[in-house]
C-alpha cells in the first residue's frame, strides 16, 4: 500500500468521563489530532475498567457539527461571527455597564457543573472580586 504521507500520531490520554457524577476513568484515543475513540482505564478506583454506554461514547460529541467554533456577537438582531477581542470587549462592556448603572447585584453568573473546578473557581472570583456580587449559582439543583 502507498504511504499517504501522514505522520504517525496515536496516543491515549487518561481523562475522566464528563457525563454523570460517578467519575469513571476513560482513556481518549487520539489519532491525527482528532479524538477517535474511548477505552476504559483498567485501574481506575471507581470504574475498574468498565464504562456505561455514555462513557464508551463520550468522545462522540467532541467533533460534532453543532460545536460553536467562533465567537458571535448580536448585531441587527442576529448573532454574527466576530473575533475574540471584539467579543470579549463586548462581554466586559455589557457586564460593566449594567453593574455601573444598576449596581453589582443587577448582574448574575451561572457557573457550571459541566466545567472544571478551576473554571468554576475563576467564575465566582470574577463575580465576587471583580463585579462585586454573590449572584453566582449553577445547576446543582436541576
Amino acid at each position: 500500500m502507498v504511504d499517504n504521507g501522514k505522520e504517525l500520531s496515536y496516543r491515549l490520554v487518561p481523562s475522566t468521563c464528563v457525563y454523570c457524577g460517578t467519575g469513571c476513568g476513560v482513556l481518549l484515543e487520539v489519532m491525527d489530532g482528532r479524538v477517535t475513540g474511548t477505552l476504559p482505564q483498567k485501574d481506575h478506583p471507581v470504574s475498574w475498567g468498565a464504562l456505561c454506554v455514555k462513557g464508551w461514547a463520550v468522545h462522540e460529541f467532541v467533533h460534532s457539527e453543532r460545536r460553536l467554533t467562533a465567537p458571535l456577537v448580536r448585531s441587527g438582531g442576529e448573532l454574527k461571527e466576530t473575533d475574540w477581542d471584539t467579543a470579549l470587549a463586548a462581554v466586559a462592556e455589557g457586564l460593566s455597564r449594567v453593574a455601573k448603572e444598576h449596581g453589582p447585584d443587577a448582574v448574575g453568573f451561572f457557573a457550571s457543573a459541566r466545567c472544571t473546578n478551576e473554571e468554576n473557581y475563576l467564575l465566582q472570583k470574577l463575580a465576587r472580586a471583580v463585579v462585586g456580587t454573590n449572584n453566582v449559582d449553577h445547576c446543582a439543583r436541576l
Partner: protein
Amino acid sequence: MTNSIGELEDAEVILVVGSNTTEQHPIIGERILAAVRKGAKLIVIDPRTIHLSSFAEVFLRPRPGSEVAYLNGLANVIISEGLEDRDFIASRTEGFEELKKAVAEYTPAKVEEISGIPAQDLVAAARLYAGADRASIVYCMGITQHTTGTDNVLALANLAMLTGNVGRPGTGVNPLRGQNNVQGACDMGGLPNVFTGYQRVDSEEAAAKFEAAWGVEGLSRKVGLTITEMTEKAAEGELRALFIMGENPMVSDPDINHVRQALEKLDFLAVADIMDNETLRYAHVALPAASFAEKDGTITNTERRVQRVRKAIEPVGEAKPDWEIVCAVARKMGASGFNFLSPEEVFEEIRKVTPSYAGITYARLGTRGLQWPCPAEDHPGTPILHAESFPIGKGRFTPCEFREPAELPDEEYPLTLTTGRLLFHYHTGTMTRRSPSLVREIDRAFVEVNPADAAELGIRDGDRVKVSSRRGVVEVDAKVTDKVGKGVIFMPFHFAEAAANLLTNSAFDPVSKIPELKVCAARIEK
C-alpha cells in the same frame, strides 16, 4: 457522599430512594447489584418501577411528593419496634425525643393513606434497614427536587442516625451527584452563599480572608441569588445582565416559558458553551468554549474524588477553554489576579484558600485522584466522612412534618407528572444528542402512562398525545406501561422539542431553593 462508591459492596442492606441508579449512575448501579450478588438486601423506593426494582427484597412505589411521610413512617416503625441503635443515639446525637414525638403520628396505616405504600411493606422495609449492621442509603434527585427537598434529606439523615449507620464502611447517607462536576462546582463556591470549601460569604472572617487572598476590598457580605431567584429577578427587571458558562436553562430549568421571558428581558446576556444550544438564541454574545478533551483541569465526583481531565487535542475551531475565557473577560474589565498561564496555576490558588483541597496537587492526583478533605500534602484523602464526629459535634435529629407538594392534581389537571433522565441521554441532550451511538438507542420524547389511566383516556401505546400543565403544553408519544402507578405520568426532560420543563413547576424548597421538578399537576389528551 459521606462514604465511597466501592464500599457499597460492603453493605448488608442498601436503601435506594429516588435514584434510578442503573440508568443515571450506571457504574454505581452495578456496584449495588454486585452487593446484592454478595448477599446484600436491596430496598428500592421509587414512584416508577425501575431496573433495580426487580432485584429488590422490598420495592415500594409511593406517590411522588409523599417522601417525608414514608421516611417518617420508617422512623416510626423503627422506634415503635425498638430497632433503633441506642448507643449511637446516646453518644453521637441529640434531639432523639423530639424526633420520637414528631414521627409518632406517622403510623404505617397513616403513611399508606398518604403515600399509597401498603402498611406491611413499609414495616418490612423498616425492619430490613434497621436490622442490618451496615446499611447504606443512596439517594438522588427523586429526594431533592421537591419543595420539601431539604426535609426529605433531613428525614433520611434521621434514619441513618437512628440506626447508627454513619461513619463506618458500607453505611452513610449517599447522595449521587447528577452532573460530572456538580460536587466540584459547589466546592469551588459556585453558589450564592459560599466561597470555596463552603466558607460563608456572610462570615466576616471568611470574607476578610478572601479579600486578603484576592487583593481586593469590600467583597459583598450579602448572600446572592440562586438560579431560580435570578430568573425571577430577571423577569421582574431587577437583574439585568447575565453571564452563563456551560448551562442550558432553556431546557434544564423548570417552567421554560418563564425562563424565556426572563432571558428576553435582560439588557445583556453572554453565553459560553461548547455547543449551539437553545439558550444561545437570547444571547448578545456567544463564546465558543473548549470541550473536556481540549483542556486540562480537575473535576470532583460524587464521592468527593478530585480527578484530572487532560488536554487530548487542540480546541476545535477558535474555541477556548472557559478558564481562559473568564480570565480574559476579567482582564478586559481591568481586574488583576487573572493572569494564569495554566489550570494548574489556578488550582494552586484554589488550594491556598480552600482547606479541604489544601493537600491536593496535580502531581498527587495522577490517574486515580484523591478524595477531599485532604488538608495536607501528606494526607491520604478521606474516603469516609463523619467517622469520629459530625462537623457540628453531635448529630442533630431534625423532626420534619409532611407537607403536600406545591401543586396537587385537581379536576382540571388530574394527573401527577414526574420527570427524570434516561440511561442513553444526559441532561439537556446537547452532548448525547450529538452522539450517534446514543441517538440510535432513543431520540424521541415520550410520556409513560399507566394502563388504567390510558384506558380511561382512550390512549393506546404509541399514540401521539398532548401533555399539559398550567404552564405549557407539549406533544409526545404515549408509552402505556405499568412502570408508573395509576394517576402518575413520567417524562424524560432531555428533549428540547418536547421539553418536559415547559410543564414543570418552578415552586422551590424554601431552604435549598431547589425547584419541584419531580411533582406537578398535568393532563393528557389525544
